């Protein structure tokens, strides 16, 4: 029964990794940009939610109504005025700019919010759980987090394959120059993609803040699992990212059950195994 519990908890943690990774996967899929500052944006979103909660007294989960649109507007502006001017044939400049953004964000947050660690208090949902089997209990918060991760991925997937904006994303991703010839302004398309990414980042940030303490410097530490989930699942494939997150969560949980020292190692080993056997990930996006 212990193993059933461990694997269920691992799957639920996988939902968190998928939330961290969905924005990364989206941005990479559309514009081949690796966003080093992704983890710091998640932490910044958690701080934004904290400010909103302090100002309005809303439950952090409800504060998403305000935080998500704000984050999306920020993402649009960030892409339009900063990142777009770095995109080109060379992949290095945008990478370096996001690296710089990461440093600026960390120290900016330190200046404004100090080094104190904070948490978003969502009330009883944080610690409540329901038993499914003897010895196996599922917490409402991890479950909600998993459901939200699935919903976010499903929503992005729907948007990609059933809307005009999604068509624009795919067209620009496949061949940005031809898309431009057809009248698609890639800069605008990219700005929308970043806006969506930041919307997902805001959701991830709020869940991060409700789960545990956060401080200005914890972004990069949280980023690595997001990266691994994206790569295990296959670059640019959103459902793959969810599955990648779950594989990572479960392998870490199994590793931890054998010895807590193996928890992170087990995740990394699975990651390396996938890279060795299928360098493009388990479910690579079909390139045209």
């Amino acid at each position, binding site marked *: 029964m212990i193993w059933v519990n*461990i694997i269920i908890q*691992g799957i639920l943690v996988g939902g968190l990794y998928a939330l961290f990774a969905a924005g990364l996967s989206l941005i990479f899929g559309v514009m081949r940009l690796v966003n080093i500052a992704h983890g710091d944006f998640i932490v910044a979103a958690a701080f934004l939610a904290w400010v909103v909660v302090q100002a309005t007294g809303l439950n952090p989960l409800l504060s998403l109504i305000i935080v998500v649109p704000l984050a999306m507007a920020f993402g649009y502006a960030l892409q339009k005025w900063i990142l777009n001017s770095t995109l080109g044939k060379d992949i290095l400049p945008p990478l370096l700019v996001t690296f710089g953004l990461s440093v600026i964000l960390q120290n900016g947050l330190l200046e404004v919010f100090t080094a*104190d660690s904070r*948490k978003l208090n969502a009330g009883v949902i944080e610690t409540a759980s329901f038993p499914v089997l003897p010895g196996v*209990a599922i917490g409402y918060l991890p479950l909600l987090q998993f459901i939200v991760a699935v919903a976010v991925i499903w929503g992005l997937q729907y948007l990609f394959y059933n809307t005009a904006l999604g068509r624009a994303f795919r067209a620009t991703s496949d061949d940005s120059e031809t898309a431009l010839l057809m009248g698609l302004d890639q800069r605008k398309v990219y700005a929308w993609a970043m806006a969506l990414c930041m919307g997902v980042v805001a959701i991830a940030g709020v869940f991060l803040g409700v789960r545990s303490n956060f*401080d200005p410097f914890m972004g990069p530490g949280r980023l690595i699992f997001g990266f691994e989930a994206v790569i295990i699942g296959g670059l640019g494939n959103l459902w793959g990212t969810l599955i990648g997150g779950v594989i990572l969560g479960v392998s870490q*949980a199994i590793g*931890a059950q054998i010895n807590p020292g193996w928890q992170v190692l087990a995740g990394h080993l699975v990651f390396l195994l996938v890279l060795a056997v299928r360098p493009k990930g388990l479910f690579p996006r079909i390139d045209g």
Partner: protein
Amino acid sequence: MSKKIVLNRRSILRAGAGIVAAPAFLRRAYAADTFKVGLVSPLTGPLAGFGEAQDWVIAGLKDAMAKLPVPIEIIAKDSQSNPNRAAEVATELIEKDGVKLLLGKDTPDTTNPVADQAELNGVPCITNNCPWQPYFFGRNGNPATGFKWTYHYFWGLEDVIANFVGIWDQSGAAKKVGGLFPNDADGNAWGDKEHGLPGPLKAAGYDLVDPGRYQPLNNDFSSQIAAFKAAGVEIVTGVMIPPDFATFWAQAAQQGFKPKVVTIGKALLFPASVQALGDRGDGLTSEIWWSPNHPFKSSLTGQSAKELADAYTAASGKPWTQPLGFAHSIFEVAFDVIKRTKDLNDPESILAAITETDLQTITGPISWKAGPNVPVKNVCKTPLVGGQWTKGDKGYDLTITTNVQQASIPVAGKVRLLN
């Protein structure tokens, strides 16, 4: 367009260089009679919480500085929470700024590189706020000979263990302890079979369940919780960073694990991190190195511990923190040394004054002369007690519950059980 920007940048740089250079030039003019004290501490980065009160402390030293026999200049540099950077700025302070006395504080990541540079360059150095074993053995100190130029004061692992056991003895919980030790310098030292918690706990009749070292910033403690539940653990201990403890504590509740006593090092130091846990912070226990209830006074300002803490809260609007006392007392020791030094231009003379220190500070008595508080040469131990966080009307308060080692520090209550 781009040309204009370059010009602007250059002119700004040039103007900036002028501003920076001017005071340096002026400083050199009166350098002969100014005694320079260098301080390295983490002001930014993950350890910034330790350095938070420092600027306020230094600003409050003006009167005390005026009373010293020579004009003093304090040059404070940021370690950015990085040991390499700490060594770099320490060298800069010694070689470029020409400090005659070097101070360093907050965790082995700062105290050790700073002390190493001072030892190497023959500059007298005083550090605090790092348990003495990582400071002394982390620098490959030999208890027989010790170091020449570098002196340190804080408590040691044996004190933490004594206080934790004191808390548990008082609680009456079953003697089954679950250990949560991360795979970092602290976790490995605390969990070490020979020098860490396991030996003394066994001697005190406690049974330690240690599932193994986890990686810091862990997202899932299910396997540890399952192991604790299976072993009937009633006491949880460890040395964790705040986010890891918060993750563990929420998961413990979700999975129905209800220990009676939870005593954690590091994660529960700052009121802000306990506040962040909401109602679930009430009743957690931790080590206390300094609190407003300590019966000590500042040798510089005459303030009691409580007055210093209240003044900080009034000025900053933030609750007191444990490093506040140590940020203050390092200057008490430094200024006392300066007062007693016969020849401030002679490092040997400054060193002699350090070794003869016998001072009552806001963090307790400091003296490096052989005695019960000096476990090895160069190290003086300050008192350590244990306590419990209690949620009141105005937020969290730390109540001293255990003074097994320091009867002079009064206890204010008994340990309450969590469940």
